[in-house]
């Protein structure tokens, strides 16, 4: 039963990932659709970051927010994404150990 479940999950996950590549690539999309698609990453990032970071430690939403704010401050200055990641992890671990 678990194998059947895994197979079914696999199909419904991989097919939607593939379809846009199989169908839409040589399509000349109207400019408004292109403009719309261009904002998907920013919108997705917001949707991934904001509710997610509140639930890093489920009963302490402030902890994830604080770690995220520190990561954002570092990202504003640093060029690569390694420093913000390390600072975010460090702040979160420190806050959870001390509070």
């Amino acid at each position: 039963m678990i194998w059947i479940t895994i197979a079914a999950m696999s199909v419904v996950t991989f097919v939607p990932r593939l379809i846009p590549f199989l169908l839409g690539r040589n399509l000349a999309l109207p400019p408004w659709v292109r403009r719309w698609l261009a904002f998907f990453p920013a919108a997705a990032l917001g949707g991934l970051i904001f509710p997610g970071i509140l639930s890093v430690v489920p009963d302490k939403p402030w902890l994830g927010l604080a770690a995220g704010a520190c990561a954002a401050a570092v990202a504003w200055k640093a060029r690569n994404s390694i420093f913000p990641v390390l600072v975010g992890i460090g702040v979160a671990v420190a806050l959870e150990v001390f509070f």
Partner: protein
Amino acid sequence: MNHDSRSEILRGARAGIPIAIGYVPIAIAFGILAKQAGLRAGQALAMSAFVYAGASQFASLSLIAGSASPIAIAFATLVLNFRHFLMSASLAQKLPPHASSAIGLGVTDETFVVAMAEERLTPVFFLGLNVTVYLSWSTGTIIGAVFSTFIPQVLARGMSVGLYAMFIAILVPGARKSWVILVVAAIGGLLTWGLAFVFPGLPYGWRIVIAILAASAVGAAIRKADA
């Protein structure tokens, strides 16, 4: 393979390292929980390898534990992962037309945003990125399923912040360049969060799909008004 594509694939593989740092603890947690839900280590690995979508894998475990039918679980998975359809659509526009469609199989929230942050995205860069990320997800799952005894939870949680920190690090340069990006991200975040209160029971997968469509429409409207 010529020199250019070799250096591109390596650059992509390196760009996957921050994602891998975020994935490993989550994958370890998945491996541990999968064992607790009654999966064999091989089944946990198969799910990570052939579903390769974190949130839906965790959701499936609680459904499996509640002995839901494969069809019900597949439907929940489809709903949760439909956002990848939107991401693939956006990514397909950015990659050159000669790129293999199979590349779409590597789309996750994280690989998508890292790939889209590239000025000139090449298929081999995305391939290298996928290799690092895919291996970290599979390896973490094996570690979790096999050594499910002792892994400190404080560290695992702290490392899951790494993923969000990386999202923030990707968002910040774009937001510095254009305030519209920041507005779109803020709307996307508030909608994904707020819709849970307006429509309790609406799954995360649908909330983020609605938020992406709506927030991006606002961004497109602002840009259009500017132009």
